[in-house]
């Protein structure tokens, strides 16, 4: 089963990378609002069903893929 994990800076957490990209996009003439930068992790998970895979990937996020102090995550299964 394939899982995609989206890790984002939590709301309210300063994201200087996003700010730098936002200002660069504006300089290029794109009138964008706030830009935020996260990370994508694609995984192949061995699990019997979707619920088990989800639980497994959640544990991965809590233990390693995201730092809960500053990042939130979303998991998509395919």
């Amino acid at each position, binding site marked *: 089963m394939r899982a995609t994990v989206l890790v984002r800076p939590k709301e309210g957490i*300063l994201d*200087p*990378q996003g700010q730098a990209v936002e200002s660069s996009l504006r300089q290029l003439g794109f009138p964008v609002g706030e830009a935020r930068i996260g990370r994508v992790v694609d995984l192949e998970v061995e699990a019997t069903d979707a619920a088990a895979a989800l639980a497994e990937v959640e544990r991965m996020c809590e233990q*390693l893929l995201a*730092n809960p*102090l500053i990042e939130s995550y979303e998991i998509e299964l395919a």
Partner: protein
Amino acid sequence: MTVPQPKIGVIRFPGACDDRDALWALAALDADAVFIRHTDTDIGGVDAVVLPGGFSYGDYLRCGALARFAPAMEAVAGFAAEGGLVLGICNGFQILCEAGLLPGVLRRNESLSFVCRDVPLVVDRVDTPFTSRCSPGQTLTIPVKHGEGNWFADDDLYAELEARRQIVLRYAEPVNGSRNDVAGVVNEHGNVMGLMPHPEHAVDPLLGSADGALILSSLVEAARERVLTPA
């Protein structure tokens, strides 16, 4: 009676670059400084441990996030849990935060630029094993060199840390966007400290400042006391 030399272990992670400077500085300050490999599961009866600066595991994922899985880090966590003295410098600080041995997290500098210069630091606490040689409120000059030194804790955590007096060092001027200019923190029991500045690069006036020796010699002294009066 001869004064014993405390044994201080410097952990070498792949990608560390300040391990030799840390070893040299500790030896110059009269410690029996030894390297410990990241693959060692036994840290071999040391009186204190230093996690040096560098870019362990290429800073992949997040700085320090992967080093905590090194076999030696399990031994360090056990050593710290028993009250052992642990000092993390720069990447070592990032590793200790990711390992949950210190509070907070080090993020990308607010400016997004790598910062490499001498910075003034104010000592908030002198009653720790890492700052006993400093005077209260003293300003130290010690270099920083990092891209991810922007320490962060949310409001609740920060209030707890202030209440428990876990903030030990602060920058006297803005350096990297760190919350309330925090440069160094201790754990709740005061036996683990992390700081972004590099005391091992400031142990001789020839290097521009010898203020880093105050931090490292505090550690050597505290480790020596543990040799004389084991817990």
